[in-house]
């Protein structure tokens, strides 16, 4: 397998080299020939082409069924019949192969959010994207009928013929062109230029409309970030409903009229008005057409937000029923502290976010009387509570200390993770480093325990070895400049669990002569302090994506992002291409960055796996972050009438979009 991939790569490289030699532009290679444009023709044989296709292709049903809710609308002629609303080639979902039942139509699903802004989570949970991850975290087409990726350089998208927006207007290549030309590359709408995924080595993508159903993005070098960015829980929306947005765009509408409309809305320019109505994610504009399974119909402010089925949704089951099964979603606003009592009183049909293991007794108590069950899914996190020594902190003494691998290792070895596990997670957690979980194909067992066992003697020896030998009267070690070794650990004030865990760690560290001071901060303030290099150490959750596959970008474990508390200045340097921040100067950090760049240059799966694994090993060897326990359980309240919710799953924002990969449109209510 490995050799064939490598051969493919060599061939591809050779092909590129040949073209260059012949003086042909790369764009010429990318140019479609007639057969290619139809979407069925094979790509040039010498290139390495990956086609993203469904795992199981089921035949399109010969006839379709419609939701009873829509029947009156069809009868009165307000909606076309279901066969005319679906694309010619709808996505036929494989229920049987995934042990799901065929559902029945109807019902309203009740759930809760704590503030109106959290309505964006509906866009996450109802996970409709150009391409999506399936439960096995393989990329699959969703809105798109097909994706062809040539060397991860040339991406050809095939749309579904007859696919429509929720208002019945066609979804075509024009919607991609409108986004790319009139939004992403419009100076007023995107003053900083297009999204970063459109750039490779500072060069913008070439975008071509091949015909109504085919578009192509191409670069000179591989862009493995591109498809994963489209499948994220918060994706880059590279298409927009052109028919709805054009009247708000200065290129298509008279400027004076637009200015008038903007002034009416108390806005300074047409661009601000456009940005307000163009809302593919937040669910704040009920007028915006969508491609999701449900569409918001309630305008804020309200206490109950209603989402109704999208009559033009592109998925059907094998028996021809257009999805979703459930008619409406009722999302109520409620204070977070009332989530558990409300669930206990049977006032929700599906609820996860906002509940925690603390609520488990309350949730269990109401199960029988109010006919629901409580599922426990592990939360995917590198570590539930992790410590980040800031390698780029301002204070020179602390900076030198934090940069010493022995110091970081000693702090990690001094923590008794078993006690934290028992105290915080009923002993059900997984103890060890902040690294990927066993569910990830990239996991190696040693990565969990290197430098992460409980060994206070070794920790003491290491600290002595660093030179922290003199102690104060209370037995606290002294810094080289005579100050006490008191580590101020800053933490977001609303994360109660992390603060509890820190209190335990305070005790463990005292045993090795290290003082810990917990400083809760407002999250915004904490972030600002971290960005400016004023934090010494921060506590927070570990890796966001703890079940990655090799094709997902490894930016969390390289000094690539300023938001990482371990290296805010290095990350800023990388993000701003050297304009701000500092260049990474520790050898292993440099190596991580190199590896990350290598990952971005390759389209070879085997190579990506090798890079990921080396990066993971480097991270635990260097203890760039100190992990504790992970695999916290997330209680999920599910009505007994609600079917097709898997008993076992993984709860995570990245990469599974909470319920997203478990496909909410397939959930249904029994009688």
């Amino acid at each position: 397998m490995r050799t064939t991939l490598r051969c493919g790569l060599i061939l591809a490289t050779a092909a590129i080299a040949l073209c260059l030699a012949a003086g042909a532009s790369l764009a010429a290679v990318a140019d479609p020939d007639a057969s290619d444009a139809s979407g069925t023709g094979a790509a040039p044989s010498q290139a390495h082409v990956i086609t993203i296709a469904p795992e199981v292709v089921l035949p399109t049903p010969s006839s379709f069924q419609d939701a009873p809710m829509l029947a009156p609308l069809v009868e009165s002629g307000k909606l076309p019949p279901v066969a005319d609303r679906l694309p010619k080639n709808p996505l036929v979902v494989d229920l049987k192969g995934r042990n799901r039942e065929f559902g029945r139509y109807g019902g309203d699903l009740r759930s809760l959010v704590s503030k109106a802004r959290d309505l964006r989570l509906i866009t996450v949970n109802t996970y409709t994207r150009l391409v999506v991850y399936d439960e096995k975290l393989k990329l699959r087409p969703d809105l798109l009928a097909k994706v062809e990726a040539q060397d991860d350089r040339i991406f050809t998208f095939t749309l579904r013929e007859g696919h429509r927006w929720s208002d019945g207007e066609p979804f075509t290549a024009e919607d991609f062109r409108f986004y790319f030309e009139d939004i992403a590359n419009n100076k007023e709408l995107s003053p900083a230029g297009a999204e970063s995924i459109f750039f490779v080595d500072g060069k913008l993508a070439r975008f071509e409309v091949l015909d109504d159903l085919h578009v192509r993005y191409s670069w000179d070098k591989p862009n493995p970030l591109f498809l994963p960015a489209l499948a994220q829980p918060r994706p880059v929306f590279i298409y927009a409903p052109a028919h709805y947005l054009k009247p708000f765009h200065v290129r298509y509408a008279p400027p004076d009229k637009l200015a008038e409309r903007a002034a009416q809305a108390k806005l300074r320019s047409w661009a601000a008005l456009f940005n307000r109505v163009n809302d593919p994610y937040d669910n704040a504009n009920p007028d915006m057409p969508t491609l999701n399974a449900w569409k918001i119909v309630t305008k804020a402010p309200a206490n109950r937000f209603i989402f109704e089925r999208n009559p033009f949704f592109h998925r059907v089951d094998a028996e021809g029923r257009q999805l979703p099964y459930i008619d409406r979603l009722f999302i109520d606003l409620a204070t977070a502290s009332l989530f558990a009592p409300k669930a206990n009183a049977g006032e929700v049909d599906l609820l996860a976010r906002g509940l925690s293991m603390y609520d488990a007794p309350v949730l269990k108590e109401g199960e029988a009387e109010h006919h629901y069950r409580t599922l426990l899914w592990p939360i995917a996190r590198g570590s539930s509570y992790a410590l980040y020594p800031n390698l780029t902190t301002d204070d020179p003494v602390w900076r030198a200390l934090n940069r010493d691998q022995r110091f970081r290792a000693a702090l990690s070895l001094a923590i008794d993770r078993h006690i934290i596990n028992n105290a915080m997670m009923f002993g059900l957690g997984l103890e060890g480093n902040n690294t990927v979980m066993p569910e990830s194909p990239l996991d190696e067992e040693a990565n969990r325990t290197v430098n992460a066992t409980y060994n206070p003697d070794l920790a003491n020896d290491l600290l002595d070895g660093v030179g922290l030998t003199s102690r104060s009267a209370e037995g606290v070690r002294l810094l080289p400049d005579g100050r006490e070794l008191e580590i101020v650990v800053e933490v977001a004030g609303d994360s109660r669990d992390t603060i509890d865990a820190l209190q335990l760690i305070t005790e463990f560290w005292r045993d090795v002569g290290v003082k810990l001071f917990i400083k809760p901060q407002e999250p915004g303030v904490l972030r600002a302090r971290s960005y400016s290099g004023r934090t010494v150490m921060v506590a927070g959750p570990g890796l966001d994506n703890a079940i990655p596959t090799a094709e997902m970008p490894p930016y969390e474990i390289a000094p690539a992002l300023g938001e990482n508390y371990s290296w805010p200045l290095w990350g800023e340097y990388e993000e701003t291409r050297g304009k701000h921040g500092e260049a990474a100067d520790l050898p292993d950090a440099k190596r991580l960055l190199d590896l990350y760049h290598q990952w971005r240059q390759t389209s070879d799966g085997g190579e990506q796996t090798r890079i990921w694994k080396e990066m993971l090993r480097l991270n635990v060897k260097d203890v760039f972050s100190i992990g504790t326990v992970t695999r916290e359980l997330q209680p999920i309240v599910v009505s007994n009438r609600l079917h097709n919710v898997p008993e076992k799953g993984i709860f995570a924002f990245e990469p599974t979009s909470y319920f997203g990969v478990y496909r909410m449109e397939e959930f249904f209510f029994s009688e």
Partner: protein
Amino acid sequence: MALLRYLLRRLVTMLLTLLAISALVFFIIKLPPGDYLTNQIAELAAEGDQSSLEKAQFLRHQFGLDLPVWEQYLAWIGLMPGPNGWSGLLQGNWGWSFEYNQPVNAVVGQALLLTLVVNLAAVIFVHIVAIPIAIYSAVRQYSIGDYLVTFIGYIGLATPSFLLALVLLYYLNRWFGISIGGLMDPAYADQAWSMEKMHSIAAHLIVPTVVIGLASTAAMIRRMRANLLDELQKQYVVTARAKGLSEGRLLLKYPFRMSLNPFIADIGNILPHLVSGSVLVSLVLNLPTVGPILLQALRVQDQYLAGFILMFVAMLTVIGMLISDLALAALDPRIRFAGRAA
């Protein structure tokens, strides 16, 4: 004539007070580092939106947050033209809420109404319950009944309201099937007004009314009782009784009226309390009132929304004070005469 001059002087000081308050409110809201966008951008970045930092400056300009603080302030109260011309509080424009992406009046309009409903219910509850009990326990001082209501009153004072709220919610749900929290069953939220909806609201008003009212009820019983006891020992009561006035008439006509004075002086506090008095309970009970909106606005630095609510409360306080001063003067001749003598 003297009254008119007095009124005029009061109005001028009121305006100056409000001006000072508005400046204070605005600058305190702006005190924490960053602004609404800093918070929002941090949130976006946490969700992996990597272009968020790039958008920041653009949005900051759009919202006018890049102007100096004093310019933002003057534009907000309407003493100088802002990005949208002359449109501040003085011109009747309440500003724009960033968080809700709507004008402030659209955000707080409905909430203000419900807040008034809830708190008025609580105030009425307090008076209906407290006054008879207070009269009873003053007239029958040191009786078993007096001790009993005193005991219950102390419990009412000492119980944390949020705890009581949760307990009441749970049992009302268990015993009567009233949905947890909110001011009505969620099913009625988007429906037109009907008998069932009114009924649902009435049922949901029980818990907030009791919880908000309980502490003040207890306090009011104690104060009323003390006032009445003072009056009951005075000479005129003895005289009236000697002249053969019936007990009930005597009580209500003289000492009771006297003991009301402190409560009239209290109107100044009750008015703003109607809007802002139930923040904590509203949060716990998930009431769609102004309290939770204000808290959230302060947290995310939605400056115009928070500023407006605080200004509104300040205005109610000032107006309440004026009303209570006038009412006291009208009701109690001693105050009027004292003024004339001086």
